[in-house]
């Protein structure tokens, strides 16, 4: 196993559409409170009213579930056939990076998967746990931890059985990558926690003039679809660059699709253009070649990915 451990915290997936609690400089401790402090509960409550209000600040994220849940579900079903009716993702373990209040984590849990949602912002995790607390059936399959991806990936090194190395069938990083400073580490950690042949799902924003005009100017300043200061255009990444980054980390990109938000109807739709938002599905190759050996052994990553999926 590679020993590339980040020595200092260089990147965190901040909470999706940060509520002003983006902490760039410090580690968030994994918070597993056994007893909840009432003042903390109050704080989670007020955040819950933001996260879980479908017409509120995070309305666009709720609406995005109409695209990203089917995207994840269908691509996983392609690889793992033979599903149970009513629980299409049963038996799969999924990691939701930057889960925030659990908007995407819960639907994946409802589809039968065992989901772990992580986010460095403890308040978001508290909110997510609170929302989940009333649903005991879902609660058996969905868990939350306040930690970063690096911490989780590092744990695996120390031999913890439960979480960490090669444990997940899929990693989902939705609306996260555009908040990160160090994507290399991110990609490495994703690969580390994924089973070979496992899937990586990313939704993020392209770095184009159009995405500046619509994603920042229109969305943040004019229409207030997202709170101001949520996004930094410099951190956006184009699909081509992201693909290159992932492939150099042992992934094979399977599909990229453009997404478009209609502020009038409040709905998302798939589109041919990836100029603004896009979704990406990549698969971890079965063997983890060192970057310099990847080209030599077999120049066709598709072959390996296909071999990986037929083994499952």
């Amino acid at each position, binding site marked *: 196993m590679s020993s590339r451990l980040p020595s200092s915290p260089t990147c965190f997936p901040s909470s999706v559409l940060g509520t002003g609690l983006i902490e760039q400089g410090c580690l968030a401790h994994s918070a597993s409170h056994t007893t909840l402090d009432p003042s903390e509960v109050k704080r989670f409550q007020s955040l819950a009213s933001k996260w879980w209000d*479908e017409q509120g600040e995070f309305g666009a994220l709720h609406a995005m579930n109409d695209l990203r849940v089917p995207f994840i*579900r269908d691509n996983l079903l392609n690889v793992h056939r033979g599903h149970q009716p*009513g629980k299409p993702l049963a038996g799969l373990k999924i990691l939701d990076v930057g889960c925030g209040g659990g908007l995407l984590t819960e639907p*994946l849990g409802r589809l039968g998967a065992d989901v772990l949602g992580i986010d460095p912002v403890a308040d978001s995790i508290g909110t997510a746990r609170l929302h989940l607390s*009333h649903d005991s*059936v879902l609660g058996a399959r969905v868990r939350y931890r306040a930690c970063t991806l690096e911490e989780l990936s590092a744990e695996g090194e120390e031999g913890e059985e439960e979480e960490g190395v090669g444990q997940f069938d899929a990693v989902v990083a939705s609306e996260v990558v555009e908040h990160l400073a160090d994507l290399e580490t991110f990609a490495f950690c994703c690969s580390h926690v994924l089973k070979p042949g496992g899937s990586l799902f990313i939704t993020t924003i392209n770095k184009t003039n159009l995405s500046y005009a619509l994603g920042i100017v229109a969305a943040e300043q004019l229409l207030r679809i997202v709170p101001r200061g949520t996004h930094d255009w410099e951190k956006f990444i184009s699909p081509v660059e992201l693909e290159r980054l992932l492939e150099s980390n042992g992934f094979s990109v399977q599909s990229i699709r453009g997404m478009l938000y209609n502020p009038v109807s409040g709905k998302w739709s798939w589109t041919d253009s990836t100029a603004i938002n896009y979704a990406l599905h990549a698969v971890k190759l079965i063997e983890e070649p060192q970057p310099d050996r990847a080209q030599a052994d077999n120049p066709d990553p598709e072959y390996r990915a296909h071999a990986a999926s037929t083994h499952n």
Partner: protein
Amino acid sequence: MHKLTKATLALNGAGRCYIAVKHCPAAKTISRGLVCTEHVSDPGKSEVYDVIISGGGMVGSAMACSLGMEPNLKGKKILLLEAGNKKVMDKVSDTYSTRVSSISPGSATLLSGVGAWDHITGMRCKPYQKMQVWDACSDALITFDKENLQDEMAYIVENDIIVAALTKQLDSLSDNVQVKYRSKVVKYTWPMSYQAADSIPWVQVTLDSGETLQAKLLIGADGPNSMVRREAGIPTVKWNYDQSAVVAVLHLSELSDTESSLVWSTSHGHAEELLQLDEESFVDAINSAFWSNDNQSEFIERAGSLFRGALSVLMPSAGSTRQLPPSVAGIGPKSRVMFPLGMGHASEYIRHRVALIGDAAHRVHPLAGQGANLGFGDVACLTQVLSQAAFNGKDLGAMQHLLEYETERQRHNLPMMAAIDLMKRLYSTNAAPVVLLRTLGLQATNMLPPLKEQIIAFASK
């Protein structure tokens, strides 16, 4: 048809509920959450169901079967609550029961999809190929039949048989669907539309036994005086027709299957009189209603036959053979019942975690035999919407997909209800101009097969 704004409603009853209105700049859905100030103690003890259906009549039972058989909903906990007793029919009784429904092909497809149709045809059901409507005030009539008389237009089925068939099917679905009989609901407690820490996010249903149940989605199938609709504070447009319906089972003098169902819509006073008559006089009353010419004026007769003549010049082949009205020989013993008629339409079919189906959402005049069919249509649509929502991992009680159900059904139901109401008003009068209008209209429609086909298609959904 879809109202986009809601002002706060008048406070209900003990002032417990009010509506929160939210407007969004993006003109999205308006949240219709209800807030209840009461908190239920000991929430941990109540059982949580994914769906609770309140009301085990034809439509409620069909909904339960439909959800129970839906593959995407496998593993969900579904409960049907019925205040009455379980209706089991080991042997079909010889006497034909009074309350019947005309089941359209669309409804038959639904019932067949849930596996109840086979039970129904095994018990008793009568397909019919032709429908004829006579006007009492003139010679005008209209005939509906399909080109090929072998195709069924619809089926007449006793309501008891439909419920018994659905109950039988529910027995076989006991893994997915639980049914509680003799369970009367005394109270509903509504959730807030988004999470607040110490209140339960589910709908709470309190039974007369004191038991409390919780539901992520409550479906109200509890009839025209729906408690769900009332407690949810959903405004209803309704009016009473000054009419009651007298229903009875008739023995006709002609054919070999001699039993037939009667629905006689008339004024309240006349309906009461009819109930008081002895059987022979009642039979006479029916026959004279079919055969008498008292209501016809000469003017209308002449205008009618002139028009008919003109039409037959234009379209000599149109217009099928006239069938004379039936003669009644007798009535089934103790089969006469009367009930008041009215129209009702809930302005909304849904709330956060609540959906109305069947007569709870819409109540119509029986003249077109559409009431049950509209309800079955609701069942088919809501099942499909919930199935898709479950496949997308959604919370079943979320407004987004419930709104799709409401929009689609209102689009279908409202024109049908308007048409039925119009028919009722058109045919409730003896006034000459109206009679002339409807006489000529009926005859013209009778001569236009494409128009009639459209009407049949609309009513068959």
